């Protein structure tokens, strides 16, 4: 009996907990970027997903180049070494688009909707660039060791029926995401520049009166956002695979994460990322096996015991979004200012 419970726990860890932590970290990093742009530049950036694809693309190109030179990181994916290419490319993209596009509307003090429409233009261009350079197809760029813990070994070690496997990319995603978030929060809370960013987001006029330079704040925001999206994109691509259209579609869960957590609030973005990821996975998971372990034999379920099929993943993040917007429009943690 107790073994059944252990097996059930392993199933949950294997199919919900581990993938949820990895996917949640990826969403959290993406949502952090959205929330920072919203907090400082005050608009919802529709080009976010495609900028993520842009940064990831350069990492993939870098990875291919490094691989052709025979460079490798042993058990770790080579893409980690190529990550700086992606980060620099994404930062440059953000800064150039800001200079060419958004700066003008900032000076005009345009309404947020104008910024959003402009970001749709940037989205088209970025999307086109990515497809033009690397093509619209699916590609996988993970190499090195595939697993940290293999299901088979886990079963042998603990003598259970069910195995737990943790992919290298899942472990890496979680560790890197935690490091990035820790760095970001340290920066925002402890450094003078970080505090000036929060001050600018809180009260633009008073920030000006205090001598905070808005151009510098905007510049630093884009640098951070560029780095975040490149890292988020690469981690997602390593864990699953890279396809420009998938990255565009990530926009919705990322927005949902940022809004659910409280848009403009970085802590909220992290929380929202995990809430969305776990809901998506938990609601579309088939609990049949899990219940077989836990329930007495005569109550064993016939069906898959799945609340929704995986095709409705978007619907899950969206329903949470709608629920939050109706009952708690400021998000779980109060939003709007960093």
């Amino acid at each position, binding site marked *: 009996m107790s073994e059944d419970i252990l097996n059930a726990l392993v199933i949950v860890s294997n199919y919900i907990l581990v993938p949820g932590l990895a996917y949640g970290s990826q969403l959290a990093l993406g949502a952090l970027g959205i929330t920072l742009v919203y907090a400082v530049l005050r*608009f*919802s950036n*529709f080009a976010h997903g495609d900028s993520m694809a842009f940064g990831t693309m350069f990492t993939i190109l870098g990875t291919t180049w490094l691989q052709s030179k025979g460079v490798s990181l042993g058990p770790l994916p080579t893409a980690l070494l190529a990550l700086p290419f992606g980060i620099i490319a994404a930062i440059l993209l953000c800064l150039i688009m800001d200079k*060419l*596009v958004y700066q*003008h509307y900032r000076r005009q003090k345009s*309404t*947020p*909707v*104008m910024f*959003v*429409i*402009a970001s*749709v*233009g*940037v*989205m*088209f*261009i*970025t*999307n*086109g*660039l990515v*497809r*033009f*350079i690397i*093509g*619209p197809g699916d590609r996988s760029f993970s190499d090195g060791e595939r697993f940290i813990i293999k299901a088979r070994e886990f079963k042998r070690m603990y003598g259970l029926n069910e195995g737990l496997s943790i992919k290298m990319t899942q472990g890496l995603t979680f560790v890197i995401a935690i490091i990035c978030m820790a760095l970001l929060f340290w920066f925002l809370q402890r450094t003078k520049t970080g505090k000036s960013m929060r001050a600018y987001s809180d009260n633009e006029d008073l920030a000006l009166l205090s001598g905070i330079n808005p151009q510098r704040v905007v510049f630093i925001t884009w640098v951070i956002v560029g780095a975040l999206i490149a890292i988020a994109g690469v981690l997602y691509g390593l864990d699953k695979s890279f396809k420009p*259209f998938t990255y*565009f*579609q990530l*926009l*919705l869960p990322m*927005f*949902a994460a940022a*809004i659910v957590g409280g848009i403009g609030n970085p802590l909220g973005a992290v929380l929202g990322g995990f809430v969305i990821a776990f809901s998506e996975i938990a609601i579309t998971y088939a609990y049949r096996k899990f219940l077989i372990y836990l329930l007495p034999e005569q109550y064993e379920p016939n*069906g898959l015991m799945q609340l929704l*099929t995986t*095709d*409705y993943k*978007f*619907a899950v*993040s*969206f329903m949470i*979004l*709608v629920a939050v*917007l*109706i009952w708690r*429009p400021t998000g779980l943690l109060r939003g709007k200012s960093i």
Partner: protein
Amino acid sequence: MGANVKTILTFGIMAVMLSAVGIMQSWSLALAITNMCLISAVMALGVNIQWGYAGLFNVGIMGFTALGGVAAVLVSVSPVGGAWQAGGLGILASLAIALATIATIVFIRSKLPPSRSRSWILFFVFVAGIAIVRWQYAPAVLAIEKFEPAQTGFLGGLGLPIIFSWFVGGLFAAGAAWLIGKIALGLRSDYLAIATLGISEIIIAMIKNEDWLTRGVKNVSGLSRPVPYEVNLQSSPWFHDLVEKVGGSSLPTETLARQQALQQMVIESSSIFVKLCYTGLFVIVLCLLLWLAHRAQKAPWGRMMRGIRDNEDAANAMGKNVTKRHLQVFVLGSAVVGIAGAMMTTLDGQFTPGTYQPLRYTFLVWVMVIVGGSGNNLGSVLGAFIIWFFWIEAEPLGQWFISFITSGMAADSALKLHLIESAAHMRLIFMGVILLMVLRFSPHGLLPEQIRR
């Protein structure tokens, strides 16, 4: 330059460009582009009603377009008797249970005062309703989808002439818009955008997965047509006579050659004739909608809408029910988009849920509206023509451009091959640049709104 002169001039240029395609490429292609331009114009008109009249930022256009397509399927396809026998009852039963659940919830909400226990009762009713619905629904769906899955595997439709679906598509979209509007209007502009984006994705997900209703990604092809088929035309004597009368002078005089050339001409003309029939139908719909939209804009209703758009707070303070007005305009605009969606599926003759992508069906329409001139109906129509024209023609232009810049490279150069292969994606970049340029340097679009107070 007066506004009217500019309108006539820009549309004139557009006509010249389409004719140029006819002369340089083929008339069949020119008509194909024109037809899609007309459908795009209807979509852009719908978006303009929402954005230009009321300032609503809806990026769920793809969903409403797809609902129009569903209407085309459900109206025109003949009912599949076997599937109805297999699971029709189950589907109807689950539908009835779902409605009963909703009615119960509404009833409880109206009778009991808000309290914690009421929330629990509502929650319980909701969960129980879902459970009962699924108990009826799941086996019915399985039965339906098992019925001749290669040909049907769905309930089919009503078997009515497809042209009715244009109206039904509008109704479907309006119904969905009403539901969405109830939830999402009242949010601030960029939240509404994200909400509508999400809903359109859900609509597509449902269409792709509810095979019993729409056949999902197995597609529905061979939809009936509101216009004649080419084969029938080619065997009709009257069509032969017509072709001979119109084009006879250019035919050779020698009998046998003349016969062959005429046959060739009949085949070509039949395709053009069919397209012309569609063009005629689309023009009628577009003109009708334009006329209605124009009347509404000039009426006190339109003035009030502009008032709300330009100063929501003031309108609120004057006692206007802003949310209700927004709902109205949201429903109307979405209905127009639904009509266009049904028209498009009719033109295609098939419904392919896998092809609906937001870039093409939502954001491209937005580019049309912004470029044409938000708030100006004729502007959106013009925007639709220009953008669709370039969306299609960007491909040959891009190919030409790429082969021009790569002409110096070796024929087997990897870069050259890659560039030629990727040229098609240039049009995305091209669209982004057009949108940003117009937004920056001519933010009111090519034909700006004519403000008359």
